[in-house]
């Protein structure tokens, strides 16, 4: 297992979201779960905590998270990831799904 944490600059989250937290994905081979929560500090950063079963890809992780923080207004959120070897594309996809879910709720 490899663990790391980092905060990325991001525009603040909309003041109202449908839910206080959202979870996307599952922990399974080649997959991951992303827990996205309101209440991270400060409001202009996305705070990320990653635990991954496959060490050695930190650069790709940080780049993917940084890009997400850049493209989405996710400031003031806390992202916690349990990963079992998901490819970066799934990381981005799950982040987007969790984000959509947080903002819009079920359906």
């Amino acid at each position, binding site marked *: *297992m490899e663990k790391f944490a980092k905060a990325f600059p991001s525009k603040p989250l909309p003041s109202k979201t449908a839910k*206080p*937290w959202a*979870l996307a*994905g*599952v*922990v*399974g*081979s080649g*997959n991951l*779960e992303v*827990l996205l*929560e309101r209440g991270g500090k400060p409001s202009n950063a996305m705070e990320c905590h990653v*635990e*991954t*079963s496959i060490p050695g890809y930190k650069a790709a992780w940080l780049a993917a998270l940084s890009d997400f923080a850049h493209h989405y207004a996710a400031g003031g959120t806390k992202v*916690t990831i*349990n*990963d*079992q070897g998901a490819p970066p594309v799934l990381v981005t996809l799950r982040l987007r799904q969790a984000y959509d879910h947080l903002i819009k*709720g*079920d*359906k």
Partner: protein
Amino acid sequence: MTGAILFHEQTARQRIASLVDLHSFAELLPPPERLTSPYLAQLGIPVSFDDGVVIGRARIGGKKIYLAAQVGQFVGGAVGEIHGAKLTGLFKAAARDKVPCVLIVESGGVRLHEGSSGEIAIAETMRAIFECRALKVPTIAVIATDIGAYGGIGILSTCCDFRVMTEHGRLGISGPIVIEKWMGKKAYDSANRALVWKTSGGKTKYLLGDADALVHDTADAVRDGISKFLGKSSAVSLASIKARQKELEKRLKKFGATSEPDAVWKGMGVRDIEAASLASGPEFAALAKRGK
């Protein structure tokens, strides 16, 4: 035919969302509480915030239910200490509140990485299920995926009042790979998918009476299947267990020497095996005429 969401492909959370009334699900011990397995953490295996089972309160068609959905992808949906305790607590809550309890099963049984704790948890949950049944609180297991209900969870599923299955669902104790290892490839080729499903799949279980409903592989169909049983319960009585004893004796006598699933299908009233193989849910039930 287009765009149907297959129930067996959904994640546990998606299943819940698509089964219950909109916005009715309130998760108990939700992910932000971060109740994760200390065993897996010690072993360097990824943990999950729900420990492989999502539990909570919800409504289906306006009726209150307790609901659990196992996460098959996470360590095979296997039951560890936390996972098991969540299940036990949920069934106990259902008994306390006299609210039906639905378990969306997807588990290979005890989580080996956590040793005997998971085994005891399954036994405790069985006790809690029977607490519900004694109070005429319906307990319903939904078995709809290939991970299905195996090992201790296979046994546990048979303790519930009702089982709703799809053709993708498998119910048993030992899985095909274990049996193949034990008996040899000749006796059981685990790669023969058609044979595997005819041995443990929903259709055969429905024919034999071990599944109470066989529904299409969609959330809508599963919800209808569940709804049918929400108002019912099958309290354990002397008459019921005596009837069951007879039925199981008869089954063993009739098919005990048979190794071909097709013989079981024919014996249970399926005339056109090929058509029945292709049919699913109620279409199959109609072809089979289980006569229940």
